[in-house]
């Protein structure tokens, strides 16, 4: 009987299609991974800090933009007065060299910018990617050709170079964080569109979608009611991995001096001339660098965890131990679940070839 069940499941899952776990199963699988749990806690803390930035700085009694010339030793070229970059009860993490702006306030407001820009850019990328991918899969041959070509071209464009160039031509009066968000969001949606297209194409061939189409549903309704639920797993997986990438890109652009500009604080921008001051004010380098590292690492680990939790093949990986020789043995133990995964899996190079 179980044999039959597996067969039905595998048939339903046919070409890598849904078989994604439900919400409850997803949480159970995510909780089963210790690293992902820790990462989720760190991310939650960071989001909390970012949201509570005004509260935290009020508690400290500082703000991120006020200059404190009295705390700067101008005779020594602008080094903060006091030990370790001017740590004190008033300035919990010291002050910036030259300007004397409060480091703690800049760091927590920087979290707002980093996370805000990265998340908003991810939303733009997902919205565009899903729209283009679904339209490509459901449209006629010409629509598909046109959109797939456009996607190929977008993917071929180097993100950093294009963002740099776009940032050059927009007038400086445009609010910078919004601009950076839009630039990242509008350039880097190609891969998600490819994944969505591949997944939507394989879903389209399944009986329940065909049934909906044959019963006269319009394309929009089919997309919303029948396709989108099946697309959730790959989209969430990819989006989770996009967030840390976006954080790095924003930090990089701001580091180069073309992203978020002062007085708005951003971690990347804080690092711009940190190398000049590392001996006199090590915290000026270590704090934003550490914040970036921890944030990107936590988001990456969490993204990996989400992927494992949503991967139909991962169930066996989570339960079976990691003995060296079990690579072969696992095939026997988890035949049903591993069969689901094969086929035109919607990720990376495979998709590239599938659409070529």
């Amino acid at each position: 009987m179980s044999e039959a069940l597996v067969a039905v499941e595998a048939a339903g899952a046919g070409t890598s299609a849904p078989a994604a776990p439900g919400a409850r199963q997803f949480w159970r699988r995510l909780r089963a991974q210790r690293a992902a749990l820790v990462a989720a806690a760190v991310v939650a803390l960071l989001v909390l800090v970012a949201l509570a930035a005004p509260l935290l700085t009020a508690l400290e009694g500082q703000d991120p933009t006020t200059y404190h010339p009295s705390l700067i030793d101008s005779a020594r070229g602008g080094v903060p007065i006091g030990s370790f970059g001017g740590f004190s009860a008033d300035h919990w993490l010291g002050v910036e060299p030259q300007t004397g702006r409060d480091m703690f306030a800049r760091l927590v407001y920087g979290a707002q910018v980093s996370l805000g820009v990265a998340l908003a850019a991810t939303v733009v990328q997902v919205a565009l990617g899903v729209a283009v991918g679904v339209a490509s899969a459901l449209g006629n041959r010409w629509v598909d050709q046109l959109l797939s070509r456009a996607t190929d071209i977008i993917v071929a464009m180097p993100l950093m170079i294009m963002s740099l160039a776009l940032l050059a031509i927009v007038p400086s009066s445009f609010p910078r964080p919004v601009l950076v968000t839009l630039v990242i969001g509008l350039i880097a949606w190609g891969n998600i569109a490819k994944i969505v297209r591949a997944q939507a194409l394989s879903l389209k061939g399944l009986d329940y979608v065909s049934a909906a189409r044959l019963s006269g549903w319009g394309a929009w309704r089919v997309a919303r009611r029948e396709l989108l639920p099946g697309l959730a797993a790959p989209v969430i997986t990819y989006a989770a991995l996009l967030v840390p990438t976006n954080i790095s890109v924003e930090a990089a652009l701001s580091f180069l001096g073309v992203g978020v500009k002062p007085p708005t604080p951003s971690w990347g921008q804080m690092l711009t001339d940190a190398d000049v001051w590392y001996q006199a004010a090590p915290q000026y380098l270590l704090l934003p660098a550490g914040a970036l590292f921890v944030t990107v690492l936590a988001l990456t680990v969490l993204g990996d965890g989400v992927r494992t939790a949503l991967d139909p093949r991962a169930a066996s990986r989570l339960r079976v131990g990691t003995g060296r020789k079990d690579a072969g043995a696992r095939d026997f133990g988890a035949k049903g679940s591993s069969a689901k995964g094969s086929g035109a899996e919607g990720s990376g190079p495979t998709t590239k070839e599938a659409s070529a």
Partner: protein
Amino acid sequence: MSGFGGFLLRRAVGTVVTLLAISVIVYVVFYVTPGNVAQITCGPRCSPEQVHQVAQQLKLGDPLYLRYWHFLEGLFVGQDFSTGTSVAHCAAPCLGQSYQTDQPVLDIILTKLPVSLSLVLGAMVVWLVLGVGTGVLSAWRRGRISERVLTAVTLAGTATPVFVIGLVLMIVVCGELRLLPFPEYVNLTDDPEQWAWNLLLPWLSLALIEAAAFARLTRASMLETLAEDHIRTFRAYGVGERAIVARHALRGALAPVIALNANNVGSAVGGAVLTETLFGLPGIGQELVHAVKVVDLPVVVGMVLVVGFFVVLANAVADVLYAVADRRVVLA
């Protein structure tokens, strides 16, 4: 074999179409913006006469398709630039002229290109060797302590932005330990040894993050190949583990690595911008950042076109290599 020839032809046509599309997008984005295009192109410090001249040069009075055609013409047959009194001919491929430095954009790019190529190609060697090596090792040592350490290190590697790795490396190696002087670019043709020593840190900074991605991919790909039936058959025949890993599994696992390498050319170019800026290497990346800051539009546009050209070409070459490594692709 005709299948392979057809595949090559399709790929070549696709590449040309992509390149043309990129030129259209770049043209539209940069020269059809709202606002005074001539003023933006000329730069903030231009006099009204200069702006007027630029407007004529860009043929702003013509309809859009003629202007784009003029732009393409410049790329393929060259065009003339009048600088008030004299007329200078800019030979194909003409990428225009910087109105801020009065230099042809192509000249600017060509003087900077060797630095960027030294950086990216050298780093590529480092990340391929380091990444594939680590990946193979960690797949082979599966389940042991060494694999866990490698996995943790590569994870930390993928999570560190290029400029943070570079900053830390520079401060520790050059500042604190004084093992190397702060990098300063030396021409390969002038002094190969100094060239390599000075590029060592930039190579490492750029390569470590990419190597981490390769290590993860190679490991996953190796594990997948090692679980396949034909490898089990080799084991059953008593082929040694070392030979299986080195000779049989690695070959099967390399195709996705090639594909990733092509996809990563774009991100490596982005990383090169950061590395060059951080270490003060006079390459294309540093020049681009400068051009963006002073809004030298012709230079920005020229660089986007050149970099886009290289990235698309790299992708096409990799596609062909991928097809050679795995002939099933041709049938798709």
